């Protein structure tokens, strides 16, 4: 597959980043950290831990109350939101395919926004990348299964060759088999294109199996920042251990079943 020479994603940095809502609720409280270019980072936490808010401040779907986000060397506030988002891939749980457009039109929307009209080849290439047949381009979203739709969502996010992929619970609405195969497909694409990927999930097992680095969030703070190996080894601290304990326990019980 002919991909551009620029195969490395961009780095992302948070500097004392906070988000407080008018009611006084603090979703994210002064987070400072750096994410290296090319890394696959999972952001894990319970509902309401602030992980989605943190992610959406990167592509300005949410504007911070304080602090700043930098992509590469550029603060995100320097670019108009729509221009910024065209350079960032975004995949989320509810997928949001445009129901009045074909799969092909959905995938090509970012290209169309840039003024490109001859998008047929690129659409076929992207469908191939997410392991869908080329003739899906002519179908309507309603004719697809949930997993197929999210593959289209991923293809749409990749169409403009972004260096950075943001994923908000991308497999949240999918069945376990589909989750697994799509997770592997995304990891493969990440490696192949050399992206920087930040994925929000509440599933620690998924985070451990897919990511290079896992950030655990609780009450708006990063409470653990470690590699999957470190977390499994119990070096992530108390809250991370509690989250890791569940899949570990499940794995042990499954192994015990096999052993009988």
């Amino acid at each position, binding site marked *: 597959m002919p991909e551009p020479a620029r195969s490395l994603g961009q780095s992302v940095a948070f500097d004392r980043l906070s988000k407080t809502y008018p009611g006084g609720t603090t979703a994210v409280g002064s987070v400072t950290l750096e994410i290296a270019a090319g890394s696959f980072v999972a952001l894990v936490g319970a509902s309401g831990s602030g992980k989605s808010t943190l992610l959406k401040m990167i592509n300005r*779907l949410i504007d911070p109350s304080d602090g700043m986000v930098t992509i590469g060397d550029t603060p995100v506030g320097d670019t108009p939101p729509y221009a910024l988002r065209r350079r960032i891939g975004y995949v989320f749980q*509810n997928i*949001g395919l445009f129901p009045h457009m074909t799969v092909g039109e959905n995938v090509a929307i970012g290209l169309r926004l840039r003024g490109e009209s001859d998008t047929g080849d690129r659409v076929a290439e992207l469908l191939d990348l997410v392991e869908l047949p080329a003739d899906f381009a002519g179908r309507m979203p309603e004719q697809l299964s949930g997993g197929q739709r999210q593959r289209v969502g991923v293809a749409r996010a990749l169409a403009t060759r972004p260096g950075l992929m943001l994923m908000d619970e991308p497999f949240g609405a999918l069945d376990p088999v589909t989750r697994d195969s799509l997770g592997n497909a995304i990891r493969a694409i990440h490696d192949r294109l050399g992206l920087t990927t930040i994925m929000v999930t509440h599933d620690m097992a998924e985070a451990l199996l897919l990511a290079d680095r896992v950030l655990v969030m609780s009450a708006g703070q990063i409470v653990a920042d470690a590699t999957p190996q470190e977390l499994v080894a119990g070096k992530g601290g108390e809250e991370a251990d509690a989250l890791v304990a569940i899949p570990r326990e499940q794995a042990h019980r499954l192994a015990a079943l096999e052993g009988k």
Partner: protein
Amino acid sequence: MSAAWSRVPDLLAQHLLLSFSALLVGLLVSLGLIIWSARSATVARIALGFASLVQTIPSLALLALFYPILLWMRSIVGDGLPALGFLPSLLALSLYAILPILRNGVTGLANLDPAVREAADGVGMTPRQRLLMVEAPLVAPVLMAGIRTSAVWVIGAATLSTTVGQPSLGDLIFTGLQTQNWTLVLAGCIASALFALGVDALLGLAEHGIRVRRRWMAFGSLGVLLAGVLIALVPMLPTGQKTVVIGAKGFSEQFILARMIGHRLEAQGYHVEYREGLGSAVVFGALTSNDIDVYVDYSGTVWTNYMHREDVPPRPEIVEGVRQWAASQHGVTMLGALGFENTYAFAMRGDDAARRGITRISDLRAVAPEMALGTDLEFLERPEWAAVERAYRLKFRDARPYNPTFMYRAIASGKADVITAFSSDGRIAAQHLKVLEDDRGAIPGYDAILLIAPKHADDAAFATALKPLIGAIPVDAMRQANYMVDREADKKSPEFAARWLEDRLGLTP
């Protein structure tokens, strides 16, 4: 029967242009409000509240309200603004068109899947791109359903525009009701109902086309509607003929006289249009503003209602007073009196009057508290009634306005004991009614007079064409002509009665 249908094409064309224009204006306003409402919940609440409020105003009242509003605006922006006819109808119907479109648009946007919006933002659409590429296409089918509802409402309500001087299929319904010509009423009803159904079906096809993404279906049906507009516009093309508009109030005598004026002007090469069913209060204003070119009024009406005079001099003095006042105050030419009077005549059933020994209005004073008065729709609001009350101190048990035709029925059936009949009406003799003498001279003379709009003040040819009507119509001939149209059996059209009258009086142009 065919006479009724022969008027349909012209009126349908007018009806179509009016209702489509109103729909288009209503649509544009609604789209603006929908987009604005999408950004602010407060705007959505206010806009929907206002549109619902408008909907609670009866459509007839809405049309009527625009007349004084436009008259008032005219005092600011000048006389170029027409207060009657197309403009007030367009404004009222446009307001009427807003609610269904606005409501569907606002709820359609509110019910859009939030994920689709998030995706639109996520791929980097500007708010404008999101509106045009995502929100508009997704709301379009719902919006189209609102447009259909709106179209049916507007086409129905447009029949009422007749009352503010805009020709529509309502002309057939109102004239038919006034002259009890049910064929005419049916023709108007059926034509407007079929028109509404046809437009609804075409818009429905367009809606279906949008839903299933068949462009040819959507554009095809919209194309048919556009073709309808173009066909309706053909008669509007300048024909090189001078067009005159003849006004008439809402009763048979007015319809007949309007036709006689029309025949003379047609013979002079004018293209003639009629605005029938105009209220007394509206028609004179329409003449002074040149919205109509000519009509017949009655000297006493002008004297009491427009000049606000309370004295009652002899008939010739009133006519002369009206002539001078109309010319000096409004530049209106009073060409002359037609030769007969149509005054308000207090009338009773002949046998009833004889039994009670009543011959004069003053005789009524003692018995009025046990009698019911029936009047035409305007009389109780007019200064003439105040003058009668002042002069005779009458207190009736009940005073109720009727449509003129029903007023004569009310006295025949005993629902009314005294009516304010019209002295030139054939039904006075036919129903053996006794006309009571106005012994205290409270009611002024009502000579039929021909009034010409200011724009024809120096138009000698126009005046010459109408001059033969002056002093040419005796009251008994007018009564017979009126009775032809008003009677129950062997009813004639105003057109027929006008031809008959011209023939009889040697006035055939």
